[in-house]
């Protein structure tokens, strides 16, 4: 019978950062992963002469010294930063609409000043309101950084927020569009500014301004990066660091049960093995729905844990097509790293259309070669095309129609990309792989193949989640890290959530509180 200070279930981004944070503090930590690689969605895979990035488009909140973003600070603090070869993303995004009356085709740069300049070109007269908006955004970033760096949560923190972050408080309860309108941003500029919305999976009438603005501001002010060896390099780097710090990892170890005693989570059972691993605390990188729905015996569940879990709504279910092409980006006519292709810039309409397989024409498309030169052999290109489904529409697909449905969506993505950009990619496809919600479900056991955690419902946005950090805990001894947490979805958010939860637990311990 082994006794661990902490067990982390799942070596996804949140699990890796939580485990490494524990190990760095000298905690005896066991990290359990069902797969044979770390990272969860943060991984890569090979087909023929290509190695595909499985999920990351770009990692934000990174920046350079000084003005380092909080995600980079976590990488630095945990000793992971230097283990990764980083590449910078060249430009922010190109948004193209297929059916919008404005016929958008706009390419936006990184850098707040450059972004405002470009916006002025596309939307003359937008400069004053955009300038005002970004001044507000800078304050949101300060508050965001403040949130990103807090290691625990208590009453003093609330007082700090009230005193030092008054602009934040004024805008905190409003949606992105409410604030954009209040600032006087013209409609066309709002449309262009909102292009990143699909990175957060909720329309900008609903998305919290703090959340959306915080993300855009971080992208624009500090740029974005990715790892040369794909996100698998980041995951391997975390794992190596964790082991250097004395941590133990078991792969091929699927936790099928959280062991409870007197209402507390005290250990875990690994499928197919005899002994139970006991620990002072358990951090689960799998979703709370999995922990409450199948890992804990229903008779051990407090009523409130069930209610709180059932209250949440899943966010986007993932779909990605990966292409290895036998022509260079120039030959194909692919000029940008990140394309946002929509029917319309109306985010409410667009998001609604993503509830069916047929209706969904939104895609975020990346060309890896434009961020990582040489990522594929000379004269070839790696591209990946991602969309989200806002409802569980894939559950209606029958097994015998599954392959054909994959192909249907893939064909639509290729056609829409060619139509939007004029690039010719179809004839150059040398490798194709398609990940559907079922693939995501299989890979990480994510409910319904969700890749975006819990949706940012009007009542469940980032602000109240962060403010309620401690009170979201469901079971004594059990904590959560990853995209279902306080920081919501995204690579940076997941790393941050793991780092924060481990620190929060240790802070409680220091104070002599029961964890």
């Amino acid at each position, binding site marked *: 019978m082994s006794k661990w200070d902490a067990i982390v279930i799942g070596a996804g981004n949140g699990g890796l950062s939580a485990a490494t944070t524990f190990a760095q503090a000298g905690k005896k930590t066991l990290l359990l992963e069902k797969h*044979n690689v770390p990272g969860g969605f943060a991984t890569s895979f090979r087909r023929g002469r290509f190695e595909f990035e499985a999920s990351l488009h770009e990692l934000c909140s990174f920046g350079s010294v000084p003005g380092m973003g909080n995600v980079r600070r976590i990488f630095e603090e945990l000793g992971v930063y230097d283990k990764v070869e980083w590449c910078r993303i060249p430009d922010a995004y190109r948004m193209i609409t297929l059916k919008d009356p404005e016929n958008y085709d706009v390419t936006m740069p990184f850098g707040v000043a450059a972004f405002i300049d470009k916006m002025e070109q596309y939307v003359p007269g937008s400069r004053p309101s955009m300038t005002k908006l970004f*001044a507000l955004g800078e304050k949101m970033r300060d508050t965001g950084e403040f949130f990103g760096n807090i290691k625990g949560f208590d009453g003093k923190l609330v007082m700090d927020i009230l005193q030092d972050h008054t602009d934040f408080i004024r805008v905190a309860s409003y949606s992105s569009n409410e604030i954009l309108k209040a600032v006087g941003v013209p409609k066309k500029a709002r449309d262009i500014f909102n292009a990143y919305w699909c990175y957060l999976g909720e329309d900008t009438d609903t998305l919290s301004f703090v959340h959306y603005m915080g993300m855009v501001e971080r992208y624009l002010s500090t740029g974005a990066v990715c790892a040369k060896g*794909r996100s*698998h390099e980041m995951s391997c780097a975390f794992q190596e660091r964790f082991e250097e710090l004395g941590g133990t990892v078991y792969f091929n170890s699927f936790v099928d049960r959280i062991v409870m005693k007197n209402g507390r989570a005290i250990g875990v059972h690994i499928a197919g093995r005899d002994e139970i691993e006991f620990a002072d605390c358990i951090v689960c990188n799998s979703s709370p729905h999995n922990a*409450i*729905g*199948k890992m804990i015996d229903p008779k051990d569940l407090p009523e409130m844990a069930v209610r709180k879990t059932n209250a949440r709504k899943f966010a986007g279910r993932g779909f990605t097509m990966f292409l290895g092409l036998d022509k260079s980006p120039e030959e194909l006519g692919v000029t940008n790293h990140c394309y946002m292709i929509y029917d319309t810039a109306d985010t409410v309409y667009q998001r609604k259309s993503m509830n069916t397989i047929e209706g969904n024409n939104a895609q975020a498309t990346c060309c890896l070669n434009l961020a990582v030169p040489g990522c594929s052999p000379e004269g070839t290109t790696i591209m990946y095309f991602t969309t989200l489904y806002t409802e569980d529409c894939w559950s209606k697909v029958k097994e015998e129609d599954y*392959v054909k449905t994959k192909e249907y969506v893939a064909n639509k993505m290729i056609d829409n990309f060619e139509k939007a950009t004029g690039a010719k990619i179809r004839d150059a496809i040398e490798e194709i792989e398609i990940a559907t919600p*079922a693939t995501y479900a299989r890979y990480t056991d994510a*409910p319904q193949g969700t890749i975006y955690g819990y949706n940012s419902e009007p009542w469940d946005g980032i602000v109240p989640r962060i403010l309620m950090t401690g009170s979201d805990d469901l079971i004594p001894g059990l904590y959560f890290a990853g995209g279902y947490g306080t920081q919501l979805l995204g690579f940076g958010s997941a790393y941050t959530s793991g780092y924060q939860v481990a620190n929060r637990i240790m802070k409680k311990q220091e104070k002599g509180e029961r964890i």
Partner: protein
Amino acid sequence: MSKRKFVVKSGMIDLINFAKMIPERKAHLENGPLRRVPATYPINELAKLNHPGKMELCVSDIIVHSEDVKSYILKAENSNKKLAPFRAGQYLTVQLKIGNSLVTRPYSIASTPNDARKGFYNITVKRVPDGFVSGYILDNIKIGDKITAFSPEGTFVYEPIRDAKTVVGIAGGSGITPFLSLAGSIADGTCDADLVLLYGARTSKDLVFKAELDELGKNDKITVVYVLSDSKEKGYEKGFITAELIQKYAPETYSIFLCGPKAMYEFAGKEIEKLNIRKKFVRFELFTSASKASQIPGFPMDKDGLTFELTVRQFGKEKKITCLSNESILVALERAGIEAPARCRSGECGFCRSKLVSGDVFVPSNTDGRRIADIKFGYIHPCSTYPMSDIVIKID
């Protein structure tokens, strides 16, 4: 921004709205429905059906083609359980306990995806000279025996978005099986492609599944050409599968799919090169890793025939076994009866990915399917890696 504070609605309303956020969320959470949180979801069940991990199967029938070639009809041991669906061209990895060894072998599925829906797979086993597993299966496995297999895997499949409308299949020996599956799924309408199959054998007696292929060849979309190397017979092509022969039967644009024994890859590989077609139109299914590593180009000959100590770490435990420089690390693990993850056995799939803690190894470049970061952080695929010193690996 001006010094004036930013106000959205009014100073007071903004503050009230802010103050409402926590109680509102608290109320939403606490009023969540009191019903069981689902343990699973339809999409997750589809994922499990597609990739069940281990499957417990049993041999329901054996078709004897010859003493050295038999087909095994496999059904789910629990007849209520559905078999994992697959795509024509994929393989099934069978796990067997032979003596003290725990071995795995991949076999392309000869039956069609629709057959799997009806409840069975067919795998065909051909005797490999000195083969440890093929001989065991052919001489020992009986109807009713239980077989453990892993979910179907593999990328040797027809992709309409990527491939030409016509597949020129080049098959030799037991390499015919994925094409039998493909032809079957073209015939039953599940796959929309044309197939020109060039099937090489020594004599007409060596053509396994000839009757089935003759029948499938009646379909407009399927052409079967038998190519005999050692005998001249009427109605058969004589010789090897050359560039000229491919051109004789292929339309203007086509994808080549090749599956066969090592000698065929070497010969046909050179012939295909002569055709000068784009890489995207050429697919090889690699199964056979060299039985003796010293035959692989680049093998350090001063290490030929040496024995080393292999320390294996798994789930916090450690075991010491011996390994040979001429055999892959996976073979050493299997011989010692250690359950090591493995599927394709040709370096490609990554299921056996393991950490090389210390020691030197030889990784042949043509079967090095590792990811960039795995090479950087010291990982190996034991199925295609050979020990060159005492080594320590972590296989969990």
